[in-house]
Structures are given as structure tokens and as C-alpha cells.
């Protein structure tokens, strides 16, 4: 028994971003322990620095030929590198915004940043996971850090309650996902995505084997839909978005969506792509339900975090619609939509956080009243973000919806496309409500902005990017398409 492993240290280069980040986490964790209270900012800057370096390492690996290491459980390909770079970027921006919030609500603690870095590590593992085992472990690393991050506001009962709900429903989702994984393992005899793919696409699949794969597939789709927050598995989304501290809501609504889409691609496209005729029907139903419910229920919300939660559900519907087409361009369009959604969601929560100040928690739409008088610039930014989310041309939110619908129509689902458009129009109403509140209502409380210059700058760039990418979407679209 001496031929069981061939280990070559040079192959570890492919996992360099992960290895660096884990080392950085350990250093920051230990350093933070001995830092005096006055120097807690150091933890923040080190966090940003390690995210930056790790992101650059991932960027450096773009264009690397596909490499599979660790006995088939880790893959490095273009999709992994591009997703990691975007995920790191989103987290860095989220951290800039979070710092303002954490200071305003005295939640600024070293563990917060360590847990964020650990969740980033979990997302990287998911993005690069090439066996069911590593995908599951990455998902759990991400989820456990997020549960703890939500509950880190220890004195706020609503945050604790949100953490508990997220925890219980997340654990149930993991259970369903695992049941599906056990079926796929049982029939294919392997956990590696490449083995599963070659098993599922083999021509002489017995009807018995197809039946079991489909049986497992149902559980996998339910588990993934749970994690993405698609209807009817969306119960946790509004409560968690509303209850969690806004900086954590910001994190949950952005980077983990990239990781969840990566997991979806690894399992359903890379692994069971040959079975897409079976899972795309499920996806079609889930996505239409999500778009419909997300658009309609959001109309009744007065809490802006809850409103954005329902808006997320409807965006997730569009992303799943892209995957439901079962074509490579459809997958590309869904990926593009996902990246655009992350950009818009970052900016939207950024504006909410911007208005926070000591002892004042912004979470109602009415808190935006009269923003155009006090800060015309940021009211304009919010206008851009909301119009983009509503899908108004020439903003990027329009193009992302347009590409998805184009693929849906060319795949022959014209009715579905029409339904999606109708609900997208309905959803425009509640985005306009926020705009109305900013521009046409009088302020009833003091809404001056106390934010540092870096936050203002990054937020402005973020919002202007929405406009800029909307004017020149070709590069990003080509990038998203090149990943499949």
C-alpha cells in the first residue's frame, strides 16, 4: 500500500489564494487578541489587506489551465478565479461600508472581521469545490460564520431571533442537500464531480439509474433553492434581512450569492449537466414563483431591508430562470445577472448604511424622506440604484434582465418570458416609491450624513459603475459568457 498518493508541492500553487487567506486569518485572530482597544482599527486594515492580496493572487490565476488537485476535490479554472476576484472585491467594498455601521452601533470587534474572513474562505472553497464533500464543507464554513455574524449584536433580540431562524432553516436545507448527495453517491459510487459527470452522461444508463439520479436531484434542487432563497423555500430571507445588523445583511445579500451560484454550477451544470432536461423544469417553476412573490409581496413593505429582501427573491428568480434555459448562453446570462445583482445590492445597502449614525438605525422607507434636499448627490446615487434594480434602460439592471429574457425566448419559453416581464413592471412600483420618498416628501427628522470620505468615495464609484457598466455592457457580458 504505497501507491496511494502522489503529492507534488508545486500543485499547491493552484490553491494559493486559499492558503494565504487561511494563514492571514490565523495571524489576524492572534494579533487581535493582544491588540489594545485603541488600535482596533489595525484589525480592519489587516482584513482589507489580506482580502486584497488574496484577491490579487486569485486574479493572477485567471487564464490558468484547468487544474484539479487534492485527489479531485479542488478545481482551478477560469470560472473559479473570476468568481473569487468578484467575491473578494464585493467583500472589500462591503467591509468599507460595514466599518461605518459598526462604529455607529458600537459593534466594532475584532472577531467580526475574523468571522467575515472565515466566511470568505468558505465561499472560496465552495467556488473551487469539485467534489460533493468539499462543496458541503465550504457551504458549512460559510453558513456557520454567517450565523455567528448575525448573532454578534448580542443585545438585540431581533438579531438573535434572525440568527436562530437562519440557523434552523439552514440546517434543514443542509439535511435535504445531504440526502440528495447521498443518493447521487449511492448510484454513481463517487463524490467527485468529474466522475459523477461521466457517469450521468454515459449512454447506457439504465432506467433504474436515471430514476435514482432524478430522485437525488429533487433534494439537491430543494437544498440549493433554500440556500439561494427561492420561493417556496424563501421563509428565512425577509426575517434574516430585517433582523440582522445591516452590515451583515449587506454581506449576506452579496458575496454568498456568488458562492451559491458557483455551487449550483458545480453540481447541476458541471456534474449533472446531462440531466438538465429534468432539473430545468423544476427551476422554471421555482423561478416564476420567486419572481411573482418577490414582486408582489414587496409592494406591501414599509421596512426597506425587508423590501430589499423580497427584491432579492425576485432577482434570484431571474438568475434561476437563466439556468433553467439549459443553454450555455443562458448560463452566461445568469452569471452576468448575478454579478450585476451583487453590484446593485452592495450599493443599495451602502446607501442605507450611509444614513446610519450613532444611535440611529435606518430601516424604514420613511427614513429616506427629503434626502434630495440634504444630500442631492447621494439621492441621485440612490435614484440610479433603484432605477437599475427596476430595470430601466440604459442602466445595467436593464441589460441583465434583457439578456436573461432574450435567452428564455430563444429557448422557446415565450409565456414564461411574458410573465416575468409583467412582474418586473409591477416591481418597478416599489422602487419608485423610494424615489418618491426621497424627492417629493419633506424630511421629518435630521438626516445629515456623518460618513468618512472613503465610504462616500467608494459608494459613489459603486453607483456610477452601475451606470457605466450599463453603457458598456459588452465586456462584462463577454466575460460572463467565456466562463461556460
Amino acid at each position, binding site marked *: 500500500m504505497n501507491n496511494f498518493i502522489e503529492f507534488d508541492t508545486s500543485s499547491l500553487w493552484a490553491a494559493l489564494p486559499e492558503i494565504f487567506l487561511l494563514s492571514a486569518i490565523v495571524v489576524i485572530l492572534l494579533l487581535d487578541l493582544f491588540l489594545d482597544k485603541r488600535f482596533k482599527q489595525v484589525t480592519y486594515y489587516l482584513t482589507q489587506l489580506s482580502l486584497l492580496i488574496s484577491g490579487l493572487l486569485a486574479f493572477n490565476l485567471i487564464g490558468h489551465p484547468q487544474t484539479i488537485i487534492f485527489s479531485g476535490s479542488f478545481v482551478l479554472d477560469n470560472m473559479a478565479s473570476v468568481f473569487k476576484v468578484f467575491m473578494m472585491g464585493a467583500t472589500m467594498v462591503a467591509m468599507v461600508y460595514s466599518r461605518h455601521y459598526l462604529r455607529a452601533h458600537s459593534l466594532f470587534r475584532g472577531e467580526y472581521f475574523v468571522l467575515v474572513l472565515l466566511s470568505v474562505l468558505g465561499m472560496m472553497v465552495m467556488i473551487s469545490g469539485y467534489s*460533493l*464533500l468539499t462543496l*458541503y*464543507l465550504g457551504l*458549512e464554513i460559510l453558513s*456557520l460564520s454567517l*450565523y*455567528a455574524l448575525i*448573532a454578534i449584536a*448580542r*443585545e*438585540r*433580540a431581533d438579531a*438573535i*431571533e434572525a*440568527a*436562530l*431562524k437562519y*440557523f*434552523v*432553516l439552514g*440546517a*434543514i436545507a443542509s*439535511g435535504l442537500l*445531504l*440526502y440528495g*448527495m*447521498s*443518493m447521487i*453517491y*449511492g448510484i454513481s*459510487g*463517487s*463524490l467527485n464531480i468529474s466522475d459523477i459527470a461521466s457517469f450521468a452522461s454515459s449512454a447506457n444508463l439504465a432506467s433504474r439509474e436515471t430514476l435514482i439520479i432524478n430522485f437525488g436531484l429533487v433534494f439537491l434542487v430543494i437544498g440549493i433553492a433554500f440556500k439561494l432563497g427561492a420561493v417556496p423555500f*424563501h*421563509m*428565512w430571507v*425577509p*426575517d434574516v434581512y430585517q433582523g440582522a445588523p445591516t452590515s451583515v445583511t449587506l454581506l449576506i445579500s452579496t458575496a454568498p450569492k456568488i458562492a451559491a451560484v458557483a455551487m449550483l454550477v458545480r453540481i447541476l451544470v458541471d456534474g449533472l449537466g446531462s440531466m438538465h432536461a429534468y432539473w430545468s423544469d423544476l427551476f422554471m417553476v421555482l423561478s416564476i414563483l420567486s419572481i411573482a412573490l418577490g414582486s408582489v*409581496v414587496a409592494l*406591501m*413593505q414599509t421596512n426597506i431591508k425587508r423590501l430589499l429582501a423580497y427584491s432579492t427573491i425576485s432577482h434570484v428568480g431571474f438568475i434561476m430562470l437563466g439556468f433553467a434555459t439549459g443553454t450555455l448562453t443562458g448560463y452566461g446570462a445568469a452569471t452576468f445577472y448575478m454579478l450585476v445583482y451583487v453590484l446593485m445590492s452592495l450599493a443599495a445597502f451602502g446607501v442605507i448604511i450611509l444614513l446610519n449614525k450613532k444611535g440611529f438605525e435606518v430601516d424604514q422607507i420613511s427614513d429616506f424622506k427629503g434626502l434630495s434636499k440634504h444630500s442631492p448627490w447621494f439621492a441621485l446615487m440612490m435614484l440610479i440604484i433603484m432605477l437599475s434594480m427596476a430595470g430601466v434602460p440604459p442602466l445595467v439592471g436593464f441589460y441583465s434582465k434583457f439578456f436573461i429574457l432574450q435567452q428564455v425566448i430563444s429557448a422557446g419559453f415565450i409565456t414564461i418570458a411574458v410573465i416575468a416581464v409583467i412582474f418586473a413592471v409591477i416591481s418597478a412600483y416599489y422602487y419608485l416609491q423610494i424615489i418618491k420618498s426621497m424627492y417629493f416628501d419633506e424630511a421629518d427628522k435630521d438626516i445629515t450624513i456623518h460618513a468618512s470620505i472613503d465610504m462616500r468615495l467608494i459608494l459613489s464609484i459603486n453607483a456610477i459603475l452601475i451606470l457605466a457598466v450599463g453603457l458598456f455592457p459588452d465586456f462584462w457580458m463577454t466575460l460572463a459568457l467565456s466562463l461556460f
Partner: protein
Amino acid sequence: MVSLSDYLILSSVIFCIGLVGIFVNRTNIITLLMCVELILVAVNTNFIAFSHFLGNETGQIFVFFILTVAAAEVAIGLAILTLLFRNRGSISVDVTNSLKG
């Protein structure tokens, strides 16, 4: 001889009992957490049965990791539960009431 299908049906029964338990104990968090454990044991039984009948150990390795994850998960879950109790003096939360307007 006991066939693979016997083991799988047994674990599917346990899996469903876990789901029903979640359904009927929605406000009792401690029991909810235990139902999640039940679901995981059902999944583990699945993996071990497959591993035995396929003759490869991969399934057992997966179970090893599921046990690790579940232990970590319980530690965090009970920590959150303790926080909730400190804040509210009770641990009853309906985890499925999402439609409050």
C-alpha cells in the same frame, strides 16, 4: 439477507420523522435542533449503507465529516439559543412566521 433497499427505506422513514418533527415542533427550538440531528443520522445511515454495498469507503469518510460539522453546528446553535434566552427569558420562537406584512 438484509438488502440495501431495507436500509434505505429505514433511513427514509427516519428522515421523514425528522421532517414531521420540525413541522409539529415549530416553536420549540430544542426539539427542533434534535430533529435536525435525526435528519443527519438518517443521511449518515444512507451513506454508510451505500458505502457497505458499493464496497468503497468514501461514504464512511463523508459521514466522518458530517459528524464533525454537526458537532460544530450544535455548539453554535446552542450558543445562539443561550443568547436568545438571556435577551428574552424564553426560547420559544416560531421559525416559520414569515408573512407578517
